[in-house]
C-alpha cells in the first residue's frame, strides 16, 4: 500500500512546477499550460484524498475541475486568438497598451 503522503508530495511537486512555469514564462500559451499543470496537481491530491477518505466528494470536485478546465481552455484560447488577430504576439511583456 502506497502511503497517502506520497501522493500528496507528487501533487505538490506538479503544482509547484506549474507555479514556476507561470511565474517565469511570458508566453501566454505556456502560462496557460502551467495553469493546467497546477490543476492536474490539485486533481491528483483530490482523487487520492477521495480514495483514502473513502468519500466520493473529492472525485466529484475533480470532475468539476476538469469540466471548468475545459471551459477555461475554450475561453482562454479564444482570448489568445483575439489578441493575436490584432497584435500578432503571444508575449505578455509586449502587451503594453495599458501603462500608466
Amino acid at each position: 500500500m502506497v502511503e497517502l503522503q506520497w501522493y500528496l508530495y507528487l501533487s505538490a511537486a506538479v503544482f509547484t512546477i506549474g507555479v514556476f512555469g507561470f511565474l517565469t514564462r511570458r508566453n501566454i500559451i505556456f502560462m496557460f499550460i502551467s495553469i493546467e499543470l497546477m490543476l492536474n496537481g490539485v486533481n491528483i491530491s483530490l482523487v487520492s484524498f477521495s480514495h483514502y477518505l473513502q468519500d466520493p466528494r473529492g472525485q466529484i470536485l475533480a470532475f468539476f475541475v476538469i469540466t471548468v478546465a475545459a471551459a477555461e481552455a475554450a475561453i482562454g484560447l479564444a482570448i489568445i486568438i483575439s489578441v493575436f488577430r490584432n497584435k500578432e504576439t503571444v508575449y505578455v511583456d509586449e502587451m503594453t497598451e495599458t501603462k500608466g
Partner: protein
Amino acid sequence: MVEFPPLGPVMPEILMTGFALLILVLDLVIKRKETLAFLSVAAAAVVMYAVLGTSGVTFSGMFAADGYSMFFKLIFLLSLILSILISVKYIAIERVNYGEYYSLMLFSTLGMMIMASAGDLIVLYLGIELMALSTYVLAGFIRHAVKSNEAAVKYFLLGAFASALLLYGISLLYGLTGTTDIKGVAAYISDNGLAGNPALMLSVILFVVAFGFKIAAAPFHMWAPDVYEGAPTSITAFMSVGPKAAGFAAMGRVFLIAFASLQVQWAAILIPLAIVTMAVGNIIAISQTNIKRMLAYSSIAHAGYALMGVIAGTPEGLAGMMSYLLIYAFMNIGAFAIIIMLRSEGFSGENISDYEGLSKKHPVSAALMLIFMFSLTGIPPTAGFIGKFYVFMAAVNAGYTWLVVVAVIFSAISAFFYMRIVMYMYMKEPRREVELTTSPALGLALAISALGVLVIGVFPGRLLDLARIAITLGWGL
C-alpha cells in the same frame, strides 16, 4: 427514492438563469439592442424582488439564502442595473453593440449570487468560475481594440492562476476534514483541535492569496490597473464593484464560519495585507494620469478599507463591510458614469486633464463628479464617510485602534488625487471643448447613484440597521 429538495430558496437564481437564457435567445429576433438592455434591467429588478422574498437553506445545506447572502445579492443586482444603464449608449459608441453583452452580464451576476449563497466549497468554486469566465469575456468585449484584448488576457491568466491556488486550498481542507461543507469544516476543525495544524495553515494561506487576487488586494493587485484601464469602461465599473463584493461575500463566509477557530491566525495575515493594500492603492493613485487607472488604484485602496471589516471578525465588522460595499457600488459606478459621459466618437476622455474646466460648460456633471469624489474620499455628508465610519468603528471595537489610525492617514492621502479632479474641474480653464454623450439611461444611472450617495450620507441609520439585521438572519445556519 431521494426526495427532491425545496426549490424556494434558489428561486432568484433560477429566475436569473431563465432571464439570461431568454435574453440570449431574444438577441436573435430583437434588432434594437436598447430593448435588450431595458429587458435586462427589468429582469434584474424582478430578481431583486424575488431575492427580498426568499429565505431558507436547501440542497442539504449546500445553498443558503440567508440575510447575509440577501444583502450581497442586492449589491450585485444594484451594480448590475447601474452598469447596464451606463452601457447602453457606450457600447454603441465602441461599436460592440451585441446582445451577448447583456446576457453575459446577467450570467456573471448569477455567478456572484451563487458565490454569496454557497454553503459548500464545491458550489463556491463553481460560482466563482461562472462569474469569472463571463467577466473575462466582458473585459475583452471590444474585440477590435488591442487594449481590451490585453485586459482580457491579463485578467484571464491571473484569474485562472488564483482559481488554481484556491482549489489547492479547498483540496487540503477536504483532506483534513473529510468534507467540503463550510459548516462541516468548521465543526471538524473545532472538535478535533486542528487549529495549529501546518497543513491547515497552508490551506488558509492559499485561501488568502486566492481571495486577495479576486478582491485585488496588494500584493496581488498587479492585474487590476491594466485590466481596469483596458476593459470597456462600463465593464470596469461593473467589475470594480460586483466581483469584488462577491469576493468579499465568499471571504466572509469562509473565514468567519469555516475558519472561525483560526481567527487569530488569519487576522495576522490579513492585517499586513490590508495595510499594504491601502498604501499601494492610495500612494500609486497619486501619480496616475489616466482616470480609469486612477480609479483602479482607488478601488484597490477601498478593498483595503473593506478588508478591515473582515479583520474585525465580528458581526458588526461584517455589517460595516457590507454597507461599505453597497455605498461603494453607488459612488464608484457614479464616477464611472461621468467618465463614460466624456467618451464620445473619436475622443476617449480618459485623461485626467480632460476634466480641466468641466464646470464651466457642464456644471451639472461637474457637480455630480464632485459629489462622487467627495464620497470616495470619505467627506461628510456623503455616503462614503458613513461607510468608512462604520468599518472603522467596528475595527476599533474589535481592538484594532492602531489599524484604524493607519487607515485614516491613508484616507487623508487619498484626498490628494480625488481632490485633484475636483480642482481641475473647478479651478482650471478648459483646454479643449469637451462634448458630453448623454442618454436617458445614463441620466437615470447618475440620478440613482447620486441619490444613493446623498440619501445614505444624510440618513445613514437605516442602512446599518439593515446590514445588522441581515447578519443575524440565518447567519451560520
